[in-house]
């Protein structure tokens, strides 16, 4: 275990790069013997890689063309160097941030669903608390971090709580919207069986709002990362946020951006997990020609 951890810490960028190259090679190998239909599918699988690489190339070229200095916007090559140079730190702190975020996100999902259902189930609750929720959400969470630190001290709790506070609202809104847009005809099926409000909720309300819920998850997960990072920036000894704080104190802009890139990679990883779940759970709803899968 320790050896593996050590290996991962020291060579994760290499492993990542090898993985990506291997994936491309494997896809290209499959393209050779493939029929016309499969080609479309394969090019869809390659699209994210090419778009990402393309974006970085354009970025690099623009930086070079306009001779943008590294402290304004480092070129991807500078960032890459910084990633390699600080791979241990980035790896370690990413791991920490990922944990904080997951914990906060998990809380947000549980609480968001519960509150969304509650808002959907009770008009009084909806009318009474929605404005408060909206008001609370218009407040930058960075203003709340100090209070959390004073209450809970420096450590993991402020990060988890900030990730939670920042990310539950989209879930609440979307679950409530999902419930509100159920066709009454579908509800009638349950009502005609004498189902209780709770049963209608679990048998129709929840499954029907799943597409909305998953839409919100994609937003919530990115927000959760933002939340834990701003908390770590202000109140933690570990995490990408803390790394960023120190990088910016050191004028190490490439490291700052390397941390941001690590964050983006973490975000995309969580996003892909969400999409995988979405495809499994709401395949029934994704039959449109506008659906990506």
């Amino acid at each position, binding site marked *: 275990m320790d050896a593996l951890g050590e290996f991962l810490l020291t060579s994760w960028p290499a492993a990542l790069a090898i993985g990506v190259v291997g994936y491309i090679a494997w896809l290209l190998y499959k393209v050779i013997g493939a029929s016309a239909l499969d080609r479309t599918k394969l090019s869809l699988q390659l699209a994210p890689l090419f778009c990402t690489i393309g974006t970085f190339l354009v970025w690099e070229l623009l930086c070079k063309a306009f001779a943008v200095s590294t402290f304004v916007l480092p070129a991807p090559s500078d960032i890459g160097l910084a990633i390699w140079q600080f791979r241990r730190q980035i790896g370690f702190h990413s791991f920490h941030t990922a944990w904080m975020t997951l914990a906060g996100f998990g809380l947000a999902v549980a609480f968001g669903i519960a509150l969304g259902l509650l808002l959907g189930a009770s008009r009084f609750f909806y009318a009474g608390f929605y404005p408060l929720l909206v008001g609370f959400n218009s407040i930058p969470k960075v203003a709340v971090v*100090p209070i959390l630190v004073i209450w809970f001290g420096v450590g993991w709790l402020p990060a988890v709580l900030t990730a939670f506070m920042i990310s539950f609202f989209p879930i609440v809104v979307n679950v409530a919207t999902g419930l509100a847009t159920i066709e009454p005809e579908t509800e009638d099926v349950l009502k005609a069986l004498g189902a209780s409000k709770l049963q209608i909720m679990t048998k129709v309300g929840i499954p029907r709002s799943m597409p909305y819920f998953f839409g919100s998850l994609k937003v919530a997960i990115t927000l959760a990362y933002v939340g834990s990072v701003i908390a770590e920036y202000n109140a933690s000894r570990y995490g990408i946020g803390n790394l960023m704080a120190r990088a910016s*104190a050191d*004028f190490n802009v490439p490291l700052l951006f390397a941390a941001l890139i690590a964050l983006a990679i973490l975000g995309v990883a969580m996003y892909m997990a969400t999409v995988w779940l979405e495809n499994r759970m709401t395949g029934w709803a994704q039959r449109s020609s506008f659906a990506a899968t």
Partner: protein
Amino acid sequence: QATTNVRFTLDWRFEGPSALFLTALEKGHFRAEGLNVSIDAASGSREGVTRVASGTYDIGFGDINSMIRFRDENPTVDLKANMIVYDRPPFAIVGRKSRGITTDVKSLEGKKFGAPAPDAAYAQWPIFKTVNKLDDSKMRFENVGFPVREPMLASGEVDAIFGFANSSYINLKSRGVPENDIVVLHMYDYGVELYGNGIMASPAFLASNRAAVAAFNRGLVKGIRDTIADPAAGAKLVVARNDVARLDTETERLKMTIDNYVLSPWVKANGIGGIDPARMATAIDQIGLTFTFKNKPKPEDVFISDLLPAAADRKVA
């Protein structure tokens, strides 16, 4: 006489110390020099450096030490200071007597500190500990955000904090910490020879408007002299810009700044703005304790002396 537009950035928000610049502006010292200066606030003394380095602002007020590090990180940008305003840096360790902190540095050992990771005062800790031969293996440094630094000291969750002496002191006082319980260890009193904040011009602006930079410095010296003469008037200008600031607080802040950082014994003797090359060399050596220079500069690499008014005109007190 044609006027030159100058975009000037402060190191911080419109608070007491910015009176030094606002006075020069409002009293027309810049206009008299043929400059049309606009002043913007910033959110940290490092920001002043990058804003000027990128050319977004023509002239800026920022931390010289940060600038020296910045030069080393970005060798292609030849950023230099051309006037020192804070002859002594505001970096300090602020502790509470009741928690066992005294003006003796040894009292810091084994204590718990509130040390925001991006804080400029904390960044000088390697110098402080080396110069004072402290062992920090038993000290604990908590990365706390700026907004909670003083509250945590006030509530006793930490024994001391890193910070800028003037703002931390005022803040602690307003939190009900008795004045005589607050112990301020100015780093300059403990062998830290760094300079504080100074004026720097963007390389492009300097190349094309060298005269304007000199003119700015002339105007600023006059402004500083006026401010020292009448701090209350200067603070009024601040409050006019910052509609939530309180006059008494800002006056106090300004006075502390002038007394501690601007009017050092050396400035009283030699006038404001210049450097002592030997001290600057020491300062650069000390900066080398906080990080490893790729290319260690000499004093003349970081400071242009010939844009200052004549020494006689720089006397402020």
